[in-house]
């Protein structure tokens, strides 16, 4: 839930964006941490621990503790407490350790395929 009236703080108006959590569209504010947007939507379980599969949320909120690692646009181990929300992001709960090399390879593949497509079209 968002804070409405506050005795000291005023929260400036920001641009609303749509992003996807496990494929489901949600709204958040552009530039806020992904974790803040998820929290505001009532989502606090961010991943499952690698060995015991226990639910994990965020703990430190400032990028120190690695409790909040999620898969963002296919890239695992993203600290969503400090990663800024952008329009159209796809955010998924991370299960286990996350395949970073696979994610990098997939991203490169996409880039290469995109590059070829561009050349072909030109």
């Amino acid at each position, binding site marked *: 839930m968002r804070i*409405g009236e506050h005795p*000291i703080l005023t929260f400036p108006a920001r641009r609303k964006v749509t992003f996807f959590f496990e494929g489901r569209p949600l709204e958040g504010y552009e530039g806020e941490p992904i974790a803040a947007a998820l929290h505001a939507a009532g989502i*606090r*379980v961010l991943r499952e621990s690698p060995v015991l599969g226990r639910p994990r*949320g*965020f*703990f*430190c909120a*400032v990028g120190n503790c690695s409790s909040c690692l999620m898969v963002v646009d296919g890239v695992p181990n993203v600290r969503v407490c*400090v990663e800024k929300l952008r329009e159209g992001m796809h955010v998924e709960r991370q299960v286990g350790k996350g395949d970073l090399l696979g994610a990098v390879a997939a991203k490169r593949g996409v880039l290469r395929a995109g590059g070829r497509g561009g050349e072909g079209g030109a």
Partner: protein
Amino acid sequence: MLNPQVMVVGAGPAGMSAALAAADCGVKVLLVDFFSEPGGQLVKQTHKFFGSRGEHAGVRGIEIARLLGEKVRTHLGVELLLDTQVLGYYPDGVLTMERTVDGESEYLKARPRRLVVCAGASEKPLAFPGNDLPGVYGAGAVQTLMNVHGVMPGRRAVMVGAGNIGLIISYQLRQARVEVAAVVEAAPVIGGYAVHASKIRRLGVPILTSHSVKEAHGERELEGVTVWRVDERWQGIPGSERHFEADVLCLAVGLSPLAELLWQAGCRMAYVPELGGHVPWHDEHQQTSVPGIFVAGDAAGVEEASSAMVTGRMAGLAAAASLGSCPHYRELAGEARAQLEALRAGPPGEKIRKGLARLEEVARRAG
């Protein structure tokens, strides 16, 4: 490769003060921070500061962040590099960094002539069953969520720790309309200032001293907390349990210095519980055992923001002086030292004084 005369890591109260002090001496400073705004943890501190007038007593932390932030942005001697994470320190004195711009990252390197590390501190966890459940947070995390991002952490909270951080954040939870079921404190006395404790007691929040968490409950998320009384040896007393329904459990049980870069640089470290754990040995000029590397703020030993600004200024002045650029160092450092002594005086400063004495002792024993 960037080649600043002085590089300051961390743009919190200590780092901004260090950068400004060095730049005022005419030295070119590179100030680097991971976040998009300068201010460090001041950006979430809505309460008014105590301490000395020179360090903005009576002003809210968020205002101090704005004031100092404006100065580092406009000072011609300071280059401010934001959204930049320092990754490591190498034996040839090179620091590596990752800078993120519009979601894309670039890799940077710097070899500064002097380094000032003001990396701050991280929150300590606490061991009890269920401490990994979503809904169990560092107290500072809840403060960030509420005061920076405008999001409520939940509906009903239990706070662990009645030091100043625990007390202040309990009050701030109420300001965000989150109920606070109780503050529990393992020590037999409240550690924070009476003025903070009175404020939350007036709101009807009980402070249970000699109590700690026995267990956190919940299936997928936190649903409740069992606390119990502890004896003088910090052991839980069976039969004294009390249960609170809560979806937020905040841990305000201390901080540990973030000193990874100093470990990497080979600085002599010492374990000093009063200063938060492993801390870099440093002299009264804030210089570590490695010449040319300085440390200030919580990274030098966990204290509070007012003294962080003074140790930061001291480190900035000393770094500039070591480059021959601070002709009035003696006088300026003397002023800073007097301010530190005033901030560390009396009963609230006892822990720090003990810690600093122990730091000296550990270093002496290590030779």
